[in-house]
């Protein structure tokens, strides 16, 4: 039996999630035994023609070219898994959604007419059907291996959608919100990192996007009680997952208080 063909694609992103794959040092050899790494420019120049059994897609859709290319990737892939906050929520570059792209393009570039770009940074699933979305900025190595194992074995991956607090308590960390008054997005953020930041007495930054049942209004009230100003609350929801619906909506709720912005373009 021939090994399934794996392809790794990049759109608008920093390559950090692909690096997470390369960082799976001990597992790369067994992985190469199970799948044929057919397309992975970050790691090898060798190109094996499609179609591919499994495509991992990093990055968000930000240009007209991306729009075409993601359609091609989808057509060439039996299964398509998006990896990272860019591919699953638009990434940090989705901050453009809250601003005027034409305006800053004309300020930043000497020849803005050469820069072809879309007004929004969108997740892959906004354009083509996606079989599984793996969250994180960057993704977690253990979770990536779980998804790959599941794909290879033909089973469902074990990727819980509950809060970071689950992992925080399992790890035995003292809650930084309750014991220190440190603002933490853990209660509204999806688990996956192993509650890394609270383990180092930092609040969670929300790298894995909204958990399954995110009560962002309640955590925003807590952040305010712990001393954050409206504009700070707005900013904590506008980082790597600014475009994730629950975080986007909560950030917009604090625009008036922060005295900025006007929500996503085209919205009343």
């Amino acid at each position, binding site marked *: 039996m021939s090994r399934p063909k794996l392809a790794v694609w990049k759109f608008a992103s920093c390559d950090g999630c692909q690096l997470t794959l390369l960082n799976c040092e001990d*597992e790369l050899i*067994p*992985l190469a*035994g*199970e799948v044929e790494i057919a397309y992975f420019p970050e790691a090898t120049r060798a190109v094996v023609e499609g179609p591919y059994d499994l495509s991992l897609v990093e990055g968000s859709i930000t240009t007209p070219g991306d729009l075409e290319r993601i359609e091609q990737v989808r057509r060439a892939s039996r299964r398509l898994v998006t990896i990272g906050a860019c591919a699953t929520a638009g990434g940090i570059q989705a901050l453009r959604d809250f601003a005027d792209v034409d305006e800053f393009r004309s300020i930043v570039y000497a020849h803005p007419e050469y820069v072809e770009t879309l007004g929004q940074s969108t997740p892959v699933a906004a354009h083509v059907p996606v079989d599984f979305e793996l969250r994180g900025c960057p993704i977690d190595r253990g979770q990536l*291996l*779980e998804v*790959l*194992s*599941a794909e*290879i*074995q033909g*089973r469902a991956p*074990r990727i*819980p*959608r*509950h*809060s970071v*607090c*689950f992992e925080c*308590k*399992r*790890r*035995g*960390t*003292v*809650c930084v*919100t*309750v*014991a*220190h*008054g440190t603002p*933490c997005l*853990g*209660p*509204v953020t999806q688990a996956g990192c192993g509650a890394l930041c609270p383990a180092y*007495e930092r609040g969670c930054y929300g790298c894995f996007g909204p*958990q*399954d*049942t995110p*009560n962002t*209004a*309640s*955590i925003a009230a*807590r952040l305010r009680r712990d001393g954050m100003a409206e504009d700070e609350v707005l900013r904590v929801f506008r980082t790597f997952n600014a475009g994730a619906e629950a975080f986007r909506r909560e950030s917009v709720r604090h625009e008036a208080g922060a005295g900025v912005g006007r929500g996503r373009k085209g919205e009343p």
Partner: protein
Amino acid sequence: MEPRVIDTAGVQALVDALLARGYTVVGPTVRSGAIVNAPITSVEQLPRGWGDDQEAGRYRLRGRGDDALFGFASGAQSAKPVFFPTEEVLWRGRRTPDGFTVEAEDLQDDRRDDQPGADAPYALLGVRSCDLAAIGIQDTVLTGRRPDAAYAARRAAAFVVAVTCSDPGGTCFCVSTGTGPRPGPGRGAPYDLALTELLEPGAHRFLVEVTSDRGAEVLGDIGSTSATAADLEAADGVADRAARRMGRELETDGLKELLYAAAESPVWDDVATRCLACANCTAVCPTCFCTDVEDVTDLTGSLAGRNRVWDSCFDADFSLLHGGRVRASTGSRYRQWMTHKLAAWIDQFGMSGCVGCGRCITWCPAAIDITHEAAVLRREAAEQEALP
């Protein structure tokens, strides 16, 4: 055996005696701004001079200005993670040339090394009365109808040194639940020794009550003096003062019926506006016992395994069945938790699932208070009844 008295050096001798018998001694210590349980070898690791301030959603250590070793209320975690680890390997299966093998792997394999739980048998030092009651409840649940062998083994091997609460927290209500503040034989899990810390009058000392042969043996290894009438009176005074200083109250009379009748109450929707569905309450609750079973494989499919991990009724997928989630809304999850804890538990196990430790109140980032919500339900029911 008559009560005895030891001093701080005697507590060290007690720790040494337990270590010498091969126990891993797990006791309270200060880490990251809170009292947490950890393996200890010295009295110096105990939270000498530390107390705490606890409120809904808030915990702060407070310097007491004295030398008390146990002058704080319930810590960040109970004994639960020691006997009922957050993750446990149930079995591993390996592919072989002619099939596969299944082995019950060494249960400590995947344990994180920063948590107690790696080196049984344990001696627990400083278990509070509420937590003793909670261990008793978990014993009923986990060694009852379908005994959990690993849990039962850890429990049977454990040595327990209980302690009387002297300075209850702002979220404590063990007097309401009848579970504290002083350990009593026959109430909750059995224990071997019980300490009551006496700061005054007289020298800093500990009354030691002996409740098992094992306890008598260990105490026999270390020097102690017989307790005087004044010592006994001082210990009673500590417990009496603690009982009068509960931060919270829970009216338990008719609570089961009240909750069963409140299934459609608007209170649940109100809680849902605040509840984060984060599961901190169930993680810190010393009696919550729900778990999930994870099946895992490696990349090559040559190793498969089943792990048991802590789960919570606040997880949306906890109630996932074919066709969808039974408890999709956060309000229905909070209702499930509170109704099970305070009502259905009684029908299921013959006792309430709440021991009044206050942890779910203190460690809730949204400051949701089970005693307050119970009072609101009661008021609402009374108002309904008053209607013509």
